[in-house]
């Protein structure tokens, strides 16, 4: 009589289900708890490490580059044909917002009205003075959300400036002497802005603070104020940031390809948000990812040993009954599978609880309260596909770790098992 695998599995399931149902609940809870921790270790540790960098990348995309950014080619003063590029982008139905930015290197001087000692160094900070279209920039980057003191600029008001927080000592003290910063500048104060030979006084409208240096190390004025301040031939922009409509099938890479094929490839440096990430950040992300995988791998080994020990002890203490089952004609495979099914149950339940914790608690918590790092707001990166892969990995390891001890015990001599020899 040859048993079908269906019969074998049916008996294995029958045995496994009852062993689980009638085993000590606290023991089951403990095993599931261990499996949950293992799964969390596998997903969360690497997720946080990658999230430290990814949080920065997300912020960079949301607050600075958008999905795609066209930058000035090194050595040139501005993007060529920037009006044509903007017009092309606006005509694309997939494009949601664009913001053209104009900037020049300049200097801001503070406290010059109260300066008594002219032999001392002036309270200045070098920065990119950036002219923006208020409505376009707000639509694209929601920059006003990051104004921590005072208010955002107003299109109808001239002579106002929004200063990046890292240009002010009270915000950038943690960075030491990494860059020059000004003392005691508050909304309502007057500062002097110099670009080349042109100098103009501005009233500080607000302070903008983010962890994206391209925002927090710049000073913003309206486009019209900027163009009044600089002596620039033509009206070409220095940066054009673009966001795509959500749900559109067009990717940033495809948008870049369209711009290149439209002949704008040599007018500016066209980069997707991913390409715009500094290379050192990508290297850190890679290293953190590797580190997370190593920690996760150790977690998997620990989990497999745990499952091995649990199933081994379970099988050893039940060796007599395994012998009896073999004695009354239950196939070795059915008994082995019953233990494998038990270990899969533990891993499955641990994984499901782990996923509920990750997606129901940890991810929303990290979104609401990101880890506060100097260079980014660390989030928990746990893409569902990756999490499912790790779930599958845990299942596979558990399956093997459950099978081996069961096999070791089941293959022992039937009579020796029954008699406990």
């Amino acid at each position, binding site marked *: *009589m*040859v*048993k*079908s695998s269906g*019969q074998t599995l*049916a*008996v294995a399931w*029958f*045995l496994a289900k*009852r*062993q689980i*149902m*009638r*085993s000590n609940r606290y023991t089951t809870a403990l095993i599931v708890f261990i499996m949950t921790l293992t799964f969390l270790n596998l997903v969360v540790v690497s997720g946080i490490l990658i999230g430290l960098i990814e949080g920065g990348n997300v912020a960079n995309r949301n607050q600075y580059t958008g999905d795609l950014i066209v930058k000035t080619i090194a050595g040139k003063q501005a993007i060529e044909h920037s009006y044509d590029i903007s017009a092309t982008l606006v005509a694309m139905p997939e494009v949601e917002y664009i913001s053209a930015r104009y900037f020049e290197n300049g200097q801001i001087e503070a406290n010059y009205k109260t300066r008594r000692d002219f032999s001392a160094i002036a309270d200045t900070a070098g920065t990119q003075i950036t002219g923006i279209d208020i409505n376009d920039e707000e639509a694209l980057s929601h920059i006003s959300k990051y104004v921590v003191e005072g208010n955002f600029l107003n299109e109808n008001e001239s002579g106002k400036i929004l200063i990046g927080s890292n240009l002010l000592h009270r915000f950038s003290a943690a960075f030491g002497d990494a860059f020059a910063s000004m003392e005691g500048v508050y909304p309502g104060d007057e500062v002097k802005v110099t670009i080349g030979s042109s100098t103009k006084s501005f009233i500080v409208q607000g302070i903008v603070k983010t962890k994206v240096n391209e925002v927090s190390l710049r000073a913003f004025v309206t486009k019209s104020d900027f163009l009044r301040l600089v002596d620039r031939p033509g009206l070409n922009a220095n940066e054009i940031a673009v966001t795509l409509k959500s749900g559109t099938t067009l990717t940033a890479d495809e948008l870049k390809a369209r711009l290149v094929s439209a002949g704008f490839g040599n007018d500016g440096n066209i980069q997707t948000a991913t390409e715009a990430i500094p290379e050192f950040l990508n290297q850190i992300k890679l290293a953190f990812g590797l580190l997370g995988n190593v920690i996760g791998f150790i977690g998997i080994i620990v989990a497999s040993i745990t499952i091995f020990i649990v199933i081994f002890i379970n099988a050893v203490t039940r060796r*007599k*009954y395994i012998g*009896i*089952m*073999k*004695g*009354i*004609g*239950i*196939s*070795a495979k*059915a008994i082995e599978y019953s233990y494998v099914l038990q270990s899969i149950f533990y891993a499955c339940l641990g994984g499901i609880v782990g996923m509920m914790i990750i997606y129901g608690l940890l991810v929303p918590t990290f979104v609401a309260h990101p880890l506060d790092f100097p260079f980014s707001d660390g989030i928990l990166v746990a893409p569902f596909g990756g999490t499912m892969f790790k779930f599958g990995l845990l299942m596979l390891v558990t399956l093997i770790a459950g099978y081996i001890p069961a096999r070791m015990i089941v293959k022992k*001599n*039937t*009579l020796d098992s*029954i008699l406990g020899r």
Partner: protein
Amino acid sequence: MITIKNLTKTYKTKHTEMTVLRGIDLEIADGEFLGIMGKSGAGKSTLMYQIGLLDHPTSGNIRIDGVDTETLSNDERTDMRLSTLGYVFQDYALIPELTAKENIMIPLLMQGKSREDAGKISIDMLHKVGLPNKENNLPSQLSGGEQQRVSIARAMAHNPKILFADEPTANLDTISGTNIIELFKQLHEQGQTIVMVTHEEEYAKYCDRVIFLEDGKVTREKAK
């Protein structure tokens, strides 16, 4: 029919060798109720384990319905135990996590019966052994006599050709022991072949034939 020829069993350890069965020749007819008696260490249980395919003899030959059992693979021996043989152990040997009904169901499920059919047969068997309302009781919720009845029900549920019983009354009080033997008697009267190891003369009287073992050999035989 079971035919045993020149059966020996020697247990070997690192430093010692102990021969428990020495050249046993035996035939068990279909429908026979055979008793195996002898002092402790005489080899009664060892003989039963060899005939019941729970162990391999050192030498000799066991044929069950003409099949040389030593030529069978482990899986084939397991299959034969499932299809042809039934066991009742001294300590009942019920699976503690399974109810009375479920203990009886497992060999039936292994034979390919549906869960529904296996359940019906199990309940029917529990009625036959006098435990009509105990199907949902775990072994720990049954007395020794009740557990042994469940064990007999499990052994008989798949209609084995031969029922082996290793001192089935050893752990029971007199009344329970007598009830179990009465159950065997009923089964025997229905044509069941039974091989029972016992050291109690009183119960051996129920057997058609009793063989006496001494020092691994059949020293005498007594027919009813």
